């Protein structure tokens, strides 16, 4: 039976990935990186669980999500920033520079089809790359450690989405620039730019902060907290699709600069519009076991009855820890139920060198024509203020928080040998062995 041409293309991408030294480097490095993160996390987890003979930390401190999953998979954030882009860039640049792209463009497959196949092949590679992380989870389970499947899936989904964004950035950079080296510089520049935006957002707040919600780093942070946010997912997908379309526009050598510029402007306009619209979405699911992104169920039911936005004016500097606390522990949870509009009115970044004003530290809550003020940033007091402000009756009884954490005092048995020795050797044997087999077949023929 004749194989469909898209399957030929897909098989070709897999062959090219396997033949690439960048893929070998990624595969070999993953073991030690994940292993080091896992071993460190297990030891630290045992420490906070009371291995030194002292009392265990608070339940939040001995959550496997924070204590094991996030640090172990943190290795993937590093790999997706520093290694994955080069694998992706090679997949496009090598064909562009070797003349292979010119041959493919004369076949019936469209450039969009080719880029889609490349993206799928790379995403498959990225999913396969999660094997060391999954091995770490199996080890953790064998030590008697607890895992919540929803938290694992959300975290894996977050890394997959981040991988897609990185691949899309790398493809667009490889398509627009002349060489792989220039594409690498552009990709790393964009990564540094997103880090800078995160930093500026922390210092300045305001618009930069709203924009920084959707950087790859910030988006991943949400998944690391066990939250599935429609806005973050749709904005990331929109950005990825827009970048992939840009790659198809710029990769074709037969288009004039004018055509490319006009299509780029159209894609950016549509992409920006969709991004702005989808960033307004507040739908989200809290899939963390300890419900860290939610108020109590009783409070949530009551707060859902509030109609219209609540405007919060915080007279706090963007870097004031009280503002961070207010946002993370109260406003973020509240925004999942009621629209919250936050503005800060301080004049300096940290508030440390600001002339003390009478109102500094005040947080004003406005709903319709009602206004209330509190300086507190703790959940019970802010909720009390909001109930008072909106006239919604506070729940009489709240079910007690039963999450007690999962302390575990253990050692990372077999992990060092597995991740530092067995995994890298296995990858080298697989990649080099395959290459040698092909060479000996070539010599034989």
């Amino acid at each position, binding site marked *: 039976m004749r194989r469909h041409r898209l399957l030929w293309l897909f098989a070709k991408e897999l062959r090219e990935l396997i033949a690439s030294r960048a893929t070998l480097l990624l595969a070999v490095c993953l073991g030690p990186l994940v292993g080091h993160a896992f071993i460190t996390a297990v030891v630290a987890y045992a420490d906070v669980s009371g291995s030194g003979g002292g009392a265990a930390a608070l339940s939040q401190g001995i959550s496997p999500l924070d204590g094991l999953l996030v640090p172990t998979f943190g290795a993937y954030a590093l790999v997706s920033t520093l290694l994955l882009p080069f694998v992706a860039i090679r997949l496009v640049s090598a064909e562009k520079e070797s003349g292979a792209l010119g041959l493919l463009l004369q076949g*019936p497959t469209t450039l969009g089809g080719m880029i889609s196949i490349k993206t799928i092949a790379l995403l498959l590679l990225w999913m396969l790359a999660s094997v060391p992380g999954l091995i770490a989870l199996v080890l953790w389970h064998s030590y008697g450690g607890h895992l919540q499947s929803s938290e694992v899936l959300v975290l894996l989904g977050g890394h997959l989405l981040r991988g897609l964004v990185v691949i899309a950035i790398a493809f667009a950079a490889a398509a627009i620039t002349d060489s792989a080296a220039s594409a690498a510089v552009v990709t790393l520049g964009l990564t540094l730019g997103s880090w800078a935006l995160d930093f500026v957002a922390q210092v300045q707040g305001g618009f930069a902060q709203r924009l920084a919600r959707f950087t790859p780093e910030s988006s991943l942070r949400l998944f690391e907290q066990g939250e599935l946010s429609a806005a973050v997912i749709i904005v990331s997908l929109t950005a990825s699709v827009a970048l992939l379309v840009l790659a198809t526009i710029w990769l074709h050598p037969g288009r004039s600069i004018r055509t490319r510029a006009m299509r780029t402007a159209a894609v950016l306009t549509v992409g920006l519009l969709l991004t702005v619209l989808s960033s307004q979405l507040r739908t989200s699911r809290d899939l963390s076991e300890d419900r860290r992104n939610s108020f109590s169920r009783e409070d949530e039911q009551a707060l859902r009855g509030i109609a219209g936005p609540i405007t919060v004016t915080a007279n706090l500097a963007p870097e004031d820890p009280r503002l961070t606390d207010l946002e993370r522990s109260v406003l973020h949870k509240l925004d999942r139920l009621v629209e919250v509009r936050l503005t800060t009115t301080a004049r300096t970044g940290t508030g440390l060198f600001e002339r003390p004003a009478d109102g500094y530290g005040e947080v004003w809550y406005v709903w319709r024509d009602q206004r209330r003020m509190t300086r507190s940033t703790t959940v019970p007091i802010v909720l009390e203020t909001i109930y008072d402000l909106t006239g919604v009756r506070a729940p009489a009884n709240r079910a007690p928080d039963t999450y007690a954490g999962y302390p575990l005092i253990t050692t990372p048995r077999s992990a060092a040998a597995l991740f530092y020795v067995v995994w890298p050797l296995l990858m080298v044997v697989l990649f080099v062995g395959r290459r040698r087999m092909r060479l000996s077949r070539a010599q034989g023929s």
Partner: protein
Amino acid sequence: MPRCVIRHFAKRFGPVVALRDVSFDVRESEVLGLLGPNGAGKTTLLACLPGLQHADRGSIEIHNSTVTNTERRALFFYLPDGITPWSAQPAAWLLDFADGVLGGSSSYGVDTNAWRDGQASPNRAHTRDPSHDALQTDILRVLRIAELGAQPIGALSKGQRKRLLLAMALRTPHPVLLLDEPFDGLDLQLTRDVIALLQRVARAGRSLVLSIHNMQDAERVCDRLVLLDDGRTVAQGSLDELRERAGLPDAALEDVFLALAFSSSTA
């Protein structure tokens, strides 16, 4: 009868003019040679025809109707000179892959009218006939593809790579095949064999447009010639027609070319 007519192609790279005004026609079942000195615009023209390079001006017509950019992809297949695609992959794989992706190894009897009506496409499963199968076998035999086997494409010598890529191009189903320096890197015997093979491919129904430096090779393989100089068409026709035009009845192609290029530049 013209398979297609190339009209007024022009292309600039910034201040450099690569093509000023190139026009000629490509006939069915012929080997057409594009001749010209370095910088005459041969490679640029070949890349512009299938749409791999943007032309500032120019059109392609079949039966007085203009071919769209998308349609060009099904009409022309261009094999550039000096490329090394998928260098890590085995040589034998390339032919299978090209067959699968470009719709290779199909009958060359693609009728231009049928193609225009969307009835024939590179991916269409064409009816096989014994002569077609014999030609396919000859392509592989003449170009000695079996010798290349599983060697990585990047490890092949220049001549071996040329043989492999020629085999790939000759197995594509596009009605017009554009080959840039098809004999570059081939030894004398192989050049003769490939010339015979190209003529056989043309007789089977395809049009071949070859960009050639070597005038002797051009004289031996081409049915008609298009002479380019400084981005312009200087002359076109069979060797005898060109000799007549140059007023050199028994001259070699090289002398005819020089005479026509000189008279064109002084005109």
